[in-house]
């Protein structure tokens, strides 16, 4: 493999005079299952080999992707990429430059206790069936459930013209459980995700029974939930909601490419944007977490990156291009979904640091507000407007958690909301998820419970 990649790089540099050239190759194998109720829709297995070629010629990027590792095809593809770059450079105003990265030669092996590629597809079907049976057996008002399962194993290869060569083992396990419950004309919907880079042993902790029951219970509980009034209220957010808030509302704005595109953080570096109790990290080193990896897709080692310290923005997430623009240190956040995509700045495991409040202390001072426990989707805009959809929430009345409310969402301006965080809990949870930014990345987000003085709650009552 190394020789093929070397020859490909040589074509770009010697024949086309590329300033920079890289090849990312992959040999991956996937197993996928979809169960609808107790029916196995299809058991699926797939091979995905391919290579992504990225070059800088005359200061512009050229990119080509091909589903093969054949040396001759790669040489043609990299020539294509160079020609594409030349075409793109025709109207270039400011040539692209990259921050310097240390040359690395390394081989990273995955060491799962239970390697998914060694587990039979029958066993995987049984795990998924147990989830589905647990959900459907929980309550007769549960009318349907969908279980998706994916594992991915294999190796990726990275080489650039700066003497970096990395072979990296890949292992991802992911599952999503969806349940719907129906009573009279009320429909409720509940979802959970499991994700790990450790191994199939994730199912020893997040057993199919435990996760299945969690999903089912929420769907049933929500049947009794009432629509709530819209308006501005104090709220206590659960770790899962804090996670999606940190990721969506803040994290995307701190991806340096989006910061440069005009996100509200652009002129806030080194400035205070949040209350003193707010500290955020994006960490690629959490062992076994869904967003962890050793090297990013530009061959840069991952790290734990401090983004906000006691309310002050101290860092952004970078690739080599943005690190150069900001004269910042590399953070190792360049990720590509697979060989079909160019690496872009993505989050890893993004979270808020816990402090010292107990859950009771967070809730006891709230006269009327909401306990927003679990989210369903979220989205942010460059202007700092965020929205987080909610699948589980409760009223807080006179310091006590009360009746469930349904189908709410919270919204506001990120910066205004961060200043309103007035207490941070001492607990901590990290939740796996998938993030879309034109391509999918596996991530985690999380934090402790927190209290926000006020947030806009969208309700239909």
């Amino acid at each position, binding site marked *: 493999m190394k020789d093929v990649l070397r020859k490909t790089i040589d074509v770009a540099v010697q024949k086309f005079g590329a300033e920079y050239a890289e090849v990312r190759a992959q040999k991956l194998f996937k197993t996928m299952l979809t169960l609808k109720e107790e029916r196995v829709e299809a058991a*699926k297995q797939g091979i995905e080999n391919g290579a992504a070629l990225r070059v800088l010629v005359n200061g512009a990027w050229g990119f080509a992707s091909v*589903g093969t590792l054949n040396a001759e095809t790669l040489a043609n593809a990299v020539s294509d990429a160079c020609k594409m770059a030349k075409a793109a450079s025709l109207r270039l105003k400011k040539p692209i430059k990259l921050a310097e990265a240390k040359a690395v030669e390394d081989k990273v092996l995955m060491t799962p206790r239970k390697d998914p590629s060694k587990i039979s597809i029958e066993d995987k079907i049984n795990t998924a069936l147990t989830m589905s049976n647990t959900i459907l057996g929980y309550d007769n008002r549960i009318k349907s459930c969908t279980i998706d399962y994916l594992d991915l194993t294999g190796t990726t290869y990275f080489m650039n013209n700066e003497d970096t060569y990395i072979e990296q083992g890949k292992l991802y396990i992911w599952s999503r459980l969806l349940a719907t419950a129906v009573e009279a004309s009320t429909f409720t919907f509940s979802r959970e995700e499991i994700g790990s880079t450790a191994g199939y042993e994730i199912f020893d902790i997040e057993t199919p029974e435990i996760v299945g029951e969690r999903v089912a219970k929420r769907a049933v509980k929500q049947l009794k939930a009432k629509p709530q009034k819209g308006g501005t209220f104090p709220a206590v957010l659960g770790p899962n909601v804090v996670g999606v808030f940190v990721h969506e509302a803040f994290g995307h704005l701190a991806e340096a490419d989006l910061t440069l595109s*005009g996100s509200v953080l652009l002129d806030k570096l080194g400035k205070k944007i949040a209350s003193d109790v707010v500290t955020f990290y994006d960490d690629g080193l959490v062992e076994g977490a869904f967003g962890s990896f050793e090297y990013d897709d530009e061959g840069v080692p991952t790290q734990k990156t401090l983004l906000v310290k006691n309310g002050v923005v101290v860092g952004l997430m970078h690739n080599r291009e943005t690190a150069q623009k900001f004269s910042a240190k590399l953070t190792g956040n360049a990720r590509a979904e697979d060989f079909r995509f160019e690496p872009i700045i993505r989050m890893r495991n993004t979270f808020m640091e816990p402090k010292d409040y107990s859950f009771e202390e967070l809730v006891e001072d709230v006269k009327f507000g909401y306990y927003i426990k679990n989210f*369903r989707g979220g989205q942010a805009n460059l202007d700092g407007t965020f929205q987080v959809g909610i699948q589980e929430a409760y009223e807080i009345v006179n310091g006590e958690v009360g009746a469930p409310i349904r*189908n709410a969402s919270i919204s506001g301006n990120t910066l205004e909301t961060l200043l309103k965080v007035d207490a941070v809990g001492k607990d901590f949870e990290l939740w796996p998820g998938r993030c879309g930014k034109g391509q999918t990345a596996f991530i985690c987000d999380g934090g402790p419970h927190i209290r926000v003085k006020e947030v806009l709650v969208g309700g239909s009552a």
Partner: protein
Amino acid sequence: MVALKQEEMQRLAEKAVSLAERKGVDEAEAFVYQGLTTSVNIERGQINRSSRIIDRGLGVRAIVNKATGFSYTNVLESEAVIEETVIKALSSAKASKADKDWHGLPTKKAFSSVEGTYDNKIVELNSEDLVNIASTMLDAAEKTDRRVFPIEGEAAASYLCKAVANSNGVEGFDHGTIIECSLATIAKGEGEVTPACFEFNIERKYDMNPEWVGKEAARLAVSALKAKRTETKSIDVIFTQFALQQLLQYTLINAVKADYVQRNQSAFKGKIGEKVASDIVTVYDDGLFNGGLRTWKFDGEGTPQQKTPIIEKGILRNYIYDNYTAKKERKESTGNASRAGYLSTPNVEATNFRIMSGNKSKEDLIDGLKEGLLVYFLQGAHSSNPASGEFSVVATPAWKIENGEIVYATKGAMLAGNIFQVLTNVFGLANNERKIGQLVAPWFLVENVKVVGK
């Protein structure tokens, strides 16, 4: 990598099917997909990259004792890998469980004829041509107003083709083209950044107006400046196609899929023949729509695409089916099996979900409103409750309408309600039909939508 030719793709599909048959499957199906996309990208005010992506592969479905296995590969050069793929599909089927509702793969039917789906001119475009389109768009945006900053954009041309074969004698090939250009901009005012504003062209034939796209994306951003908060109250709302698409994708469109209906996940279950929308709402799932983004001769399992009435004058007429969900009810597939290239088994999906236009111009729609909100995009529509249709989303950007005039942009207004209620409250449709993803629709005027402001 040179494109696979029609004969090569068909031969590959047929070979995989006969190989599977020789290995003892009850039924087999092969789907070969190839996509070539060339694009030129704009990032932060300049064209800075170009790419060419070639993705192709083979997906094989094998059925043994009513259990389905699937396997795919993108390694097509090797006979051994093709054979391994067939064997994996077979072993997956054997490991899987029997499905009593499995009643066989589709049988052979004549394919539909389609128009406006292929343009040789698009196939012949090179990256220099796309650079020209992108820079026309960029220049137009920048010339419009100096407060405008184009954050990202693209000009792209794709050639897509697919071949299908199964053990019932279904075999077919179809190809098509798509060309698109898009631009997202923001405007920066005093201490203010607007939300991202977006415009685009997308067509199956070479019919582009990049200058309009650039100007329009810039105009939207500028008009989103000086946004104000709104108050909480129920008012009339105009949804543009962007907002509609976001709102309907996870709710109404799912509600008419037979899969959702059969699995008790649809609020439309048992409602065929009943009134589900206002009288002025007529919807077709039109897989043959001339120039439609999802118009093909056949669907993801080789069933001819067709035009299916979904809602006629407010009355629910049909659900949409793939082969499996249709046979479960002893019905015919409506040609709505969709697949993600070679990577997946088929799923029920809308083709061109066409909401028929009205006869008012969009200006007339605005003109008639005493108080209203014009909503361009929604944030958070994917967090709607897909089963109940309840949504709670942010309208951004959106503009306040008073006495028939757009008066200012709004900031952070939330909309809350139920999509099925929204459908019964539609009281105006414009005549400005356009295609966005699977939706083909005009602007929608809906009364009495709850807007949550400060």
